[in-house]
């Protein structure tokens, strides 16, 4: 009976692993193909099924005028918008979460829980609902098709995540440590900066990783709010999907865009194993 369970377990885990890896293997293989090896039907193994070329990878660094798909600039744009949006969200979100965790607020019928819910509830809003008014608002402000405009939008997208994770995290940091600091003569800001913050690094890292994931993988806002001046990576890659699709460039570009965050998976796993995540995610 025990052997049966174990066999079943390994079988299931293996099957799911194959499912997870399959699209990546296919993309890696496809990124080395050329026109013939794509349009002739499915091929898999280089040198056996098809003659590998580096065309797909080289096209990533050529300008569109020379038949390439320049993804260097979109890549850097994506890095900037994600980093700036995450940073602002983490700073503002951490401060707000600290206030919501340590002090009591009353504004009419609103209590702490309601204010926290207000932050988090922004995630219910589908992007499409905000897209049209954002489009008009950024147009009026002259921020359409600019990096700054996108950062503003990403703050709305990411701050709820930062608040959600940090409120729970601060609730787990014992209140005595701020009180001791206050008795020692710190003002509340010094207490926060010198004592609470250093004890909250794991929470901030987890919140930061989630902001990065949701910022880096967003497509819709960048798709609606930018045109030619500023292009983010997902938009640039999906644009390849429309015309006669060069599968090889597309696969290579997809792999480049996915690679940076795979590192995040390793960090998340380390925090998970150390037990730091259970406090931060609930």
């Amino acid at each position, binding site marked *: 009976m025990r052997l049966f369970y174990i066999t079943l377990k390994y079988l299931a885990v293996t099957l799911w692993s194959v499912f997870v890896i399959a699209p990546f293997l296919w993309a890696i293989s496809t990124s080395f193909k050329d026109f013939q090896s794509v349009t002739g039907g*499915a091929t898999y193994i280089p040198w056996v099924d098809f003659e590998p070329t580096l065309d797909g990878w080289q096209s990533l660094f050529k300008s569109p005028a020379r038949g390439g798909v320049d993804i260097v600039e979109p890549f850097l744009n994506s890095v900037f918008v994600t980093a700036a949006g995450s940073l602002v969200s983490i700073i503002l979100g951490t401060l707000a979460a600290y206030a919501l965790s340590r002090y009591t*607020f009353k504004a009419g019928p609103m209590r702490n829980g309601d204010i926290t819910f207000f932050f988090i509830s922004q995630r219910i809003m589908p992007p499409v609902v905000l897209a049209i*008014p954002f489009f008009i608002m950024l147009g009026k402000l002259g921020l359409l098709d600019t990096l700054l405009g996108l950062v503003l939008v990403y703050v709305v997208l990411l*701050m709820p995540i930062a608040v959600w994770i940090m409120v729970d995290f601060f609730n787990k940091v014992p209140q005595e440590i701020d009180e001791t600091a206050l008795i020692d003569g710190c003002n509340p800001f010094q207490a926060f900066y010198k004592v609470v913050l250093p004890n909250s690094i794991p929470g901030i890292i987890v919140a930061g990783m989630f902001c990065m994931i949701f910022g880096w993988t967003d497509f819709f806002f960048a798709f609606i709010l930018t045109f030619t001046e500023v292009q983010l990576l997902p938009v640039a890659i999906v644009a390849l999907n429309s015309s006669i699709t060069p599968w090889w460039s597309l696969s290579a*570009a997809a792999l480049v865009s996915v690679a940076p965050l795979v590192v995040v998976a390793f960090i998340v796993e380390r925090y998970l194993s150390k037990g730091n*995540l259970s406090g931060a*995610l609930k």
Partner: protein
Amino acid sequence: MNFKHKYLFLLPGLLVLLGILIFPIGFTVRLSFSSWDSFYPGLDFIGLDNYIRLFTDDMRFWEAFGRLSLLSLTTVFLQYVIGFSLALMVWKQIVFQRFFRVLFLIPMMTTPVIMTVVWRTFFHESLGPVNDFLSLFGMQPLWLSSEILSKFTVILVEVWQWTPFMFLLLLAGLLSLPKEPYLAASIDGAGPVRTFVYVTFPLMAPISIGAIIIRLIEASKIMDTVYVLTSGGPGTATETSSFYIFIKGLREFQFGYSAALSLTYLVIMIISFTIIAKILTKLMVRGS
């Protein structure tokens, strides 16, 4: 503690969020009472006309909503069952434990639209590997252009993408469970199945409810996948609410009408989530 400091902590974040959101939300409400479209741009006032049209003369919206319910409930249910099973499997002793944990997390780190572009080539009906394999058995299913199968493909891609998130939340929960109930269960001689039913599952109920709600909220926004994979097609077979609002607002430029759609959709969503949270709490916490 000093009473003024608390506002200095809270207000920067709250005001920035309100500042960025107040115009979009207020404007959407106002817009929903106007007939702004590409022919007559401008904020006129037509009363409740948009809402009347929505409730009496727009089956497509309600069909899209039904489809969204079907797709999101199915995908989240599958994600929960698979995610929980995977979390249980790598929770305790297993070879390559870290390898499997990292691997199972990876899909949620990838950009949905970009992986969907890859999936599209994967399920390509004449050049993709899936049909290449199935053709050995003489089958050539139309993954993207058949009414029923296209829904299945969307679900499959969503399950691939977001099961890791469920897995992460549930595994974090499992790792934080207390040890004592398990000692008690093993002293009583309970096998793995009974231990799961009477100890693990009840202890995990609050975390499960939280994870399911979070995933349902995210799943209700399903749009990127549909846009790239099928563009809502064939016909309207995979068109969800978000995608329909997108078509009305940003393809046909019926800004006024799409604002009314958006607000109606939001109200329905908030009510549904409240009800779903209540039902889940009743179902799962019943035992304890």
